[in-house]
């Protein structure tokens, strides 16, 4: 049975209108006249509801009509359609609309729609083309409308329709007959080659050393005795092997950050042995800062980092990446990334409430011509569109404002996009009198799985993201998050938290139950899981699949036996599914049962401590560069317009406007500012409570191109960028903490990666830069993540990303009424430049635009900068500064243009008094476009200049110009006019992306 719903009148279908506009803008469909879309609900039974009732469930009586006999297209307002394409989800892929449709049907029936009944949805697109569509056009359209990895598309033309062909009454459903029991995987007798083969065939992503360690465990006579005593074979079961592979995956164990590294600097001759980059540079940095940062509450060991906001409130922050899934299914990958990191917040301490999302998205240039995209890869524009839609739905539907983030475009992200998803949360300092950051799980507590059901989605996600992408990458590694199911769970959890109904909580992300319960089991020293008790989406999953599936919207909890009834009752009432799937023990083992038969027994000590440390080699040789100085290009206006139109610098408003950045009513500094609300801001400022002046700042720093010369400088710059943005919006210099997210190309030396030692040296140097900047600025690292295999191999060609370190900062602002924005406020205000300008052009945006290498790596001198950061914070608190914009991509010239755009005013500027010891070594072009860090473009009222000057005495600060009431940017140097450009010209260049996506 097909229920087909369409609009009853023309011009009401906004979804169709949007598609038509996009298709026409692409210029690829010259004969396309109109598009109309229909919603289709497919049912295998109607439970006695007649046609009118079914249409009534799904059609809006004011504007829509429906049919149940498969002839929907013939009543659509688009009478002259010539081509129809129907897109539906493949069997087993989450279909959130179908979940709602099932609820609506059940509601009409006044009881649950039968669980075994099939409910599917599809979207039917009707196209009117003035001439018959060519095969190429049809193929192109179909490719645009669906992702064959997760969806199927069926095409019918008008002739076929007239001849009586119809769309299916039902799409195939998952029917799995295999699986259902655990198998033994003999490995105790295998040689090294056979072990490696096993690892590859089962997608375990384990090395020969790791396979050897596993083999050693199963050969241990004590282990064998213990296994025999419970009736297990001495050979591992597939359940055990999968659990080990998941727990030991690069994704979950961060093996490279834990490795033993022999670092050799060929320049200085330094030879150092580093045991764990993570302990040495990240944990130790925070430990060193802890005495002076008493507001650190819970760092590194929970799902997100927790700091104190005030006496009664804690805030937490976490950023994750979801790169590999987004490369395959951009929409599903991104939305899953968002709802996944939301769960990290829900699983922090006793449970926190998400209050903001951030995202940083890195793609290939969306203008890349098709013939320059390696085959097998999605075009970057399609990746961008899908990821963006995922971020929009993930955030908006969850009711979490997307307050901050950015887009980066670089050819190195063609192979793998980077999708950084962050979430901040809030929790009371005490819950029912107990410290909210503490979980205590004891033997006897029940293990509960909450939320969605388990299916085959996302199997091997953890191990798969630990491999490079190739043509054979598994499609089952894709999951699609459903924000609404999760929102219901999240509402329930916060209610249950405040009633004290559970004792411990963590999220189910990569690795599923294996990861969540495997980690929680450490608290009580053991767990018994009964895998057959897990609610399944469909029958036939093997026990190992239940254990490692990454089906979404699930949390794992520890519930005391005397609270379980109340817990499950409330869950049921709130329409959230929960099931007891085991019990915490003190056995020292993870034990799994399936229908009362034991299928796994692994010592916790081995599971978490048995992984051999990797031994790696890092060799630093500075890259060979062919640099030519920028000199003084004749047409600086043209260069400025080119820089403004580079996608990295250009306005992203058309994309960002689609994010709800204001739900929860906290946004004091929004993504945009200024007269027409289109000037970019440096970061977000959020209020926490309507009655309190205290707020939060959220900013980012990332600059992968500086890594071309040295990742040490790159890391310092990333920290500086995030911190100076925090200062620029009015943040407290002594109250900020940061997260580090490393995305690297594979740095492990191998036949495929002969340059591993260099890439690893880059990682070591980035870690050192991170540490040095954080220590100098007093910025504790409170959480982080790394993703180390961002390479794609397609047709034998390897595409590796530029090493990328994203710094995300969450800070405090003591008085939101002193928050600052980047827009010039009033004509006559003095324009100031704070911070030293040096001829530092390597890795700059101008270098990218011109396409040849320029000298001078931007170098952070944090001790010098920190002194005037504190002064600026003081000036902002005293209300002496009218506008503040931190200089980043494109340097002074771009900052001037952006502050003018915000203010819808002009500026007259001279380069004669640019602060800095080396200004005289720089050409005018370098003064304008240098990307020296730690600089701000400020404006102050003339009457405040004297006071500002006094306050900043000894700091590198000069008046460089004045805000004018004209609409021109005028830049002069030694009496010579260098640039004279109209605001409108700047806007046109800067808004180049508005029509592109």
């Amino acid at each position, binding site marked *: 049975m097909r229920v087909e719903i369409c609009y009853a009148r023309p011009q009401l279908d*906004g979804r169709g209108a949007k598609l038509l*506009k996009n298709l026409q803008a692409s210029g690829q469909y010259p004969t396309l006249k109109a598009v109309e879309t229909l919603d289709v609900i497919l049912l295998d039974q109607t439970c006695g509801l007649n046609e009118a009732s079914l249409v009534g469930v799904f059609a809006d009586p*004011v504007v829509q009509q429906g049919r149940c006999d498969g002839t929907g297209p013939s009543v659509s307002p688009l009478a002259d359609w010539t081509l129809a394409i129907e897109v539906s989800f493949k069997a087993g892929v989450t279909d959130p609309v179908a979940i709602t449709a099932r609820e609506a049907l059940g509601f009409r029936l006044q009881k649950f729609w039968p669980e075994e009944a099939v409910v599917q949805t599809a979207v039917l697109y009707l196209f009117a083309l003035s001439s018959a569509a060519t095969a190429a056009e049809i193929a192109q359209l179909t490719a645009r409308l669906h992702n064959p990895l997760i969806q199927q598309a069926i095409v019918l033309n008008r002739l076929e329709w007239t001849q009586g062909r119809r769309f299916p009454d039902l799409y195939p459903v998952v029917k799995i007959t295999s699986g259902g029991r655990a198998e033994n995987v003999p490995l105790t007798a295998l040689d090294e080659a056979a072990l490696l083969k096993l690892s590859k065939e089962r997608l375990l992503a384990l090395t020969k050393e790791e396979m050897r360690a596993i083999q050693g465990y199963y050969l241990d006579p004590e282990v064998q005795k213990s296994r025999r005593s419970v009736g297990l074979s001495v050979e591992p079961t597939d359940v055990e092997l999968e659990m080990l592979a998941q727990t030991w995956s690069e994704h979950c164990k961060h093996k490279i950050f834990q490795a033993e590294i022999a670092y050799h600097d060929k320049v200085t001759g330094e030879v150092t042995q580093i045991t764990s980059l993570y302990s040495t540079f990240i944990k130790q940095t925070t430990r060193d800062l802890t005495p002076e940062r008493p507001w650190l509450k819970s760092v590194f060991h929970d799902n997100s980092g927790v700091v104190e906001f005030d006496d009664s409130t804690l805030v937490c922050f976490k950023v994750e990446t979801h790169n590999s899934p987004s490369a395959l299914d951009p929409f599903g990958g991104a939305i899953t990334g968002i709802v996944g990191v939301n769960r990290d917040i829900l699983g922090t301490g006793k449970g926190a409430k998400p209050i903001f999302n951030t995202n940083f998205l890195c793609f290939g240039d969306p203008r890349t011509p098709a013939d320059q995209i390696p085959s097998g890869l999605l075009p970057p524009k399609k990746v961008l569109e899908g990821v963006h839609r995922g971020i929009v739905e993930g955030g908006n539907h969850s009711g979490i404002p997307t307050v901050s983030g950015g887009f980066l475009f670089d050819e190195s992200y063609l192979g793998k996009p980077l999708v950084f998803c962050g979430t901040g949360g809030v929790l009371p300092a005490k819950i029912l009198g107990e410290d909210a950051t503490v979980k205590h799980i004891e033997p006897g507590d029940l293990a509960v799985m909450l939320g969605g059901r388990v299916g085959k989605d996302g199997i091997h996600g953890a191990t798969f993201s630990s491999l490079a992408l190739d043509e054979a990458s598994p499609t089952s590694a894709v999951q699609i998050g459903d924000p609404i199911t999760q929102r*219901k769970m999240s509402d329930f959890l916060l209610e249950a938290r405040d009633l004290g109904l559970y004792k411990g909580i963590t999220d189910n992300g990569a690795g599923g139950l294996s990861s969540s319960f495997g980690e929680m089991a450490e608290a009580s020293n053991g767990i018994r899981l009964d895998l057959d008790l897990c609610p399944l989406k469909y029958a036939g999953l093997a026990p190992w699949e239940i254990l490692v599936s990454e089906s979404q919207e699930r949390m794992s909890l520890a519930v005391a036996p005397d609270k379980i009834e109340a817990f499950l009752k409330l869950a049921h009432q709130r329409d959230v599914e929960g099931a007891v799937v085991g019990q915490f023990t003190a056995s020292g083992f993870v034990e799994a049962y399936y229908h009362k038969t034991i299928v796994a027994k692994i010592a916790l000590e081995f599971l978490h401590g048995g992984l051999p440390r990797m031994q790696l080699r890092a060799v630093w040789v500075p890259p060979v560069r062919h640099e030519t100085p920028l000199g003084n290009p004749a047409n600086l206006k043209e260069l400025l317009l080119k820089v403004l139109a580079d996608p990295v610098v250009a306005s992203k408003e058309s994309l960002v406007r689609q994010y709800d950045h*204001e739900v929860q009513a906290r946004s004091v500094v929004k993504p945009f500012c200024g*007269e027409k*609300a289109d000037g970019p801001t440096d970061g977000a400022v959020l209020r926490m409570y*309507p009655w309190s002046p205290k707020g939060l700042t959220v900013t980012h720093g990332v600059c992968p191109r500086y890594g071309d010369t040295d990742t040490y400088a790159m890391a310092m710059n990333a920290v500086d960028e995030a911190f100076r943005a925090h200062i620029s919006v009015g943040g407290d210099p002594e109250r900020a903490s940061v997260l580090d997210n490393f995305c690297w190309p594979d740095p492990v030396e191998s036949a495929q990666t002969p340059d591993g030692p260099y890439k690893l040296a880059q990682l070591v140097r980035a870690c050192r830069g991170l540490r040095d900047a954080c220590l100098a600025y007093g910025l504790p690292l409170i959480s982080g993540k790394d993703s180390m295999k961002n390479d794609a191999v397609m047709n034998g060609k390897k595409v590796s990303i530029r090493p990328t370190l994203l710094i995300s900062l969450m800070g405090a602002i003591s008085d939101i*009424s002193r928050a600052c924005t980047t*827009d010039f406020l009033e004509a006559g205000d003095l324009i100031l430049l704070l911070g030293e300008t040096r001829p530092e052009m390597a890795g700059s945006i101008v270098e990218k635009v011109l396409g040849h290498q320029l000298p001078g790596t931007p170098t952070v001198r944090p001790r010098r900068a920190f002194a005037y950061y504190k002064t600026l914070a003081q000036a902002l608190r005293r209300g002496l500064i009218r506008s503040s914009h931190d200089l980043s991509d494109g340097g002074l010239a771009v900052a001037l243009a952006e502050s003018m755009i915000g203010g819808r005013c002009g500026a007259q500027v001279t380069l004669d008094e640019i602060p800095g010891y080396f200004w005289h070594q720089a050409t005018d072009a370098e003064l304008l476009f240098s990307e020296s860090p730690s600089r701000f473009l400020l404006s102050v009222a003339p009457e405040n200049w004297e006071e500002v000057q006094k306050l900043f005495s000894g700091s590198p600060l000069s008046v460089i110009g004045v805000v004018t009431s004209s609409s021109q940017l005028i830049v002069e140097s030694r009496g010579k006019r260098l640039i004279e450009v109209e605001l409108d010209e700047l806007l046109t260049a800067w808004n180049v992306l508005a029509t592109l996506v």
Partner: protein
Amino acid sequence: MINVGILTGFGINADLELGQAFEMAGATPQFLPLTSLIEDSRALSGVQILAFPGGFSFGDHLGSGRVFGQMVKSRLKDEVDALLARGGLVLGICNGFQTLVKMGLLPNIEGDWTPTVSLITNDHGLFQDKWVKVRYNDKSVSPWLRDLQEADLPIRHGEGRFVTLNEQVRKDLKERQLIALTYENENPNGSQDNIAGITDPTGRVFGLMPHPEAFTSRFLHPLWRRRREVGSLGLKVFENAVDYLK
């Protein structure tokens, strides 16, 4: 004391700030999960205002507000009618407005909850978050709108395009002064007659697409650093309701 019942659940998500806005206006908010009300609706007998917050109930699947509206209408219609009969108020913002419209409580000209208007996908097909200027109808009898002329408010929706069943309904809305507020300067979603919000004939049921609850402080206005005066706060809407019931 004025009790406000704020519906929650199934993807509603602007409940917290709506509660804060009523609290700032002097009322006492109470969050009522729809799942609880369906089992036991007695909590509704104690409220003077029932508010439907913004959000994405059921993910806007199958049309924004439709499934949520069907649930409320089939389980709580009598209780809502009773609330109105005793002089209470009903408010729907964004997804709440969509819900009120789809279940027929707005504009409800005939008094029988028959849907006669709808809110559908924006004409440009996109979700947008931006601030717009709105003009309130000074001829409206609605207690929610007293002393309001114009204001800046944020909109955050993908389905805010207001349409009527037919010309008669369109005419009725105009002639009976049921149009509560309209978009000024620009029409951000293709709404018929620039309609941003409507009331029922009593004026006591009020729904709108913009978010007054997101403008309870000058520091939430996008131009607060550029303007000494940021105009009438959204807070005024909630104060009006509380004053009326006092």
